[in-house]
């Protein structure tokens, strides 16, 4: 990363369900090539923030910019264009259960490229091989394990060589070794594809291992209380809530 270039900007974002305000006044920027962590305690709105960023939920107030284009002010065609450059790994994989893994990965390619069937099949094999699932093309999502479903979801997310990869709790439900492998995979993909990565997680080992930028959401004050490199936050930010989170409650010495 020679020069730093802003990729995603969140400006004065307020998230609400009806009258209930979940988070307000969120402001942060994500640079191209960052691995950006959205962290905070359970139920504070991390996944909801992700849904606002990927175009699933309209913000109550504020804007989400991708390289200068406001996602929610763009016309439907322009927004579709932007969203096509996203790859999203959902918490449970969200594979289409009536299709085989190969069909799952192939669908975005069929819809948005002019590739021939052979070329698509080659792409599908490549993407499945990248996540360590070659040979599983003809399996249905219900026939493989939870960890494999996640990896297959990642293969689908990478189908169109996205500019931004979103991960919703990638290591939830995975054993430590698989979680570590997924972290390594995320790092490798960022380095090789040059994609920007946004990860929702509260897994401390992942946060420190892969994150180089982050935002910390606090459910009590209903806003963000810090942003920046999580390693720096641990060393330099003295807010007890952040210290407590990043040290598993050791800073305060009590059970949370």
């Amino acid at each position, binding site marked *: 990363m020679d020069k730093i270039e802003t990729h995603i900007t969140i400006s004065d974002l307020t998230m609400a369900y009806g009258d209930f305000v979940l988070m307000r006044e969120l402001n942060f920027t994500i640079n191209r090539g960052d691995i950006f962590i959205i962290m905070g305690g359970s139920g504070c709105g991390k996944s909801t923030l992700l849904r606002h960023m990927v175009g699933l939920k309209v913000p109550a107030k504020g804007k989400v910019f991708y390289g200068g284009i406001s996602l929610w002010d763009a016309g439907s065609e322009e*927004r579709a264009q932007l969203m*096509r450059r996203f790859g999203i790994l*959902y*918490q*449970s994989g*969200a594979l*289409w*259960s009536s299709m085989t893994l190969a069909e799952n990965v192939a669908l975005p390619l069929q*819809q948005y490229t002019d590739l021939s069937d052979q070329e698509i099949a080659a792409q599908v094999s490549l993407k499945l091989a990248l996540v360590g699932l070659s040979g599983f093309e003809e399996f249905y999502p219900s026939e493989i394990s939870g960890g494999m479903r996640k990896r297959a979801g990642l293969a689908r997310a990478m189908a169109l060589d996205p500019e931004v990869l979103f991960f919703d709790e990638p290591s939830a439900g995975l054993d430590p070794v698989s979680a570590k492998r997924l972290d390594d995979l995320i790092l490798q993909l960022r380095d090789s594809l040059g994609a920007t990565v946004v990860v929702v997680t509260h897994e401390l080992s992942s946060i420190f291992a892969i994150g180089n930028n982050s935002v910390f959401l606090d459910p009590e004050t209903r806003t963000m209380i810090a942003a920046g490199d999580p390693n720096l936050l641990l060393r330099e930010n003295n807010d007890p809530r952040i210290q407590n989170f990043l040290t598993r409650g050791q800073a305060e010495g009590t059970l949370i």
Partner: protein
Amino acid sequence: MNEAAIHLKRLPGEILAIHLAGKWQLGKDVPSSENVRAELIARPPVRGIVFNTDGLSFWDSSILTFLVDIMKHCVEEGIKIKSDGLPTGVRQLIDLATAVPKKEDAQKSVVDESVLSRVGSEAIQFVKSTGELISFVGVTSIAIARLIQGKARFLSSDLWLLIQETGIQAVPIVSLISFLVGLILAFVGILQLQMFGAQVYVADMVSIAMVREMGAIMTGIIMAGRTGAAYAAQMGTMQVNEEIDALETLAISPMEFLVLPRVMALTLMMPPLVLYADLMGVLGGAMVARLYGIRLTVYLNRAIGALNLYHLFIGLFMGFVFGVLVSMSGCLRGMQCGRSASEVGNAATSAVVTGIVAIIVATAVITVICNILGI
């Protein structure tokens, strides 16, 4: 010494000693904390409590609820608690249970609504759901327009599979039900007609009733229970699994990808199924007529003579309309589904109810219109 028991004893300095003895087990007879509480507020006021558990042979959660209750009371009354007499395990569990204070605002407030406000919120809900219905019809129309322009995105393999599931696989149940309906109609009719010696008119009655109304209505209701519920459950499950989110974030419209092929499959398959149901119903009637001595050729000749193309077209048109209504209500409820297993069940139920109501209302409207047009 196996019964759970408590003995209370006043010590000097207004200290209450609580002796716990025996086997404290959930589901068995254990003492209630009432006596202790009564003793705590008795005169002269108690200033502290201590415990003695020398006779305690076994304990589980029953002793914890007992002790937590007493301790809560003590805290309220400002009575000192000396808990070293308790077994270590009990002490640690009680510490854990009382470590985090009860979050008052976490309790969901259950407000008793007045009848007026309930009626009001139901009315608001009704207006909202009507709005949702109208907007669903709107986006489906847009999807159909894009289909006509050739811009809709869906898999043709999906469409063929759905046609097979909704059409061909429904043939056995449609055969059975419409055959029986024809049979029942004929039975009821022939008994009445016999009184006038006009039993041969049963052919007219059954064929017109089946072809014009009953074939379409019965097929529609079968489809509401079979296909409408299936659509709602499929799409509801996809909602729960975030599969619909995954489509949306790929900028593939679920309306085109999921709703369109389903609506098309059922709408295309309904008229042929209705035609088939008509035939089965007329055959059911023929069987009863045969039992009452009417020859098959006579029955069929009368049936053909009684029918005209208007009857047939009205029946087929109704089938087409029911196909649209049932598939749309299934998809609508599926798309509205929340994110839990019980929501999927509700979606399926509501799809069947909506489908059947829509069928009945549409039948009434079509019948009135036919009446006005004189056909």
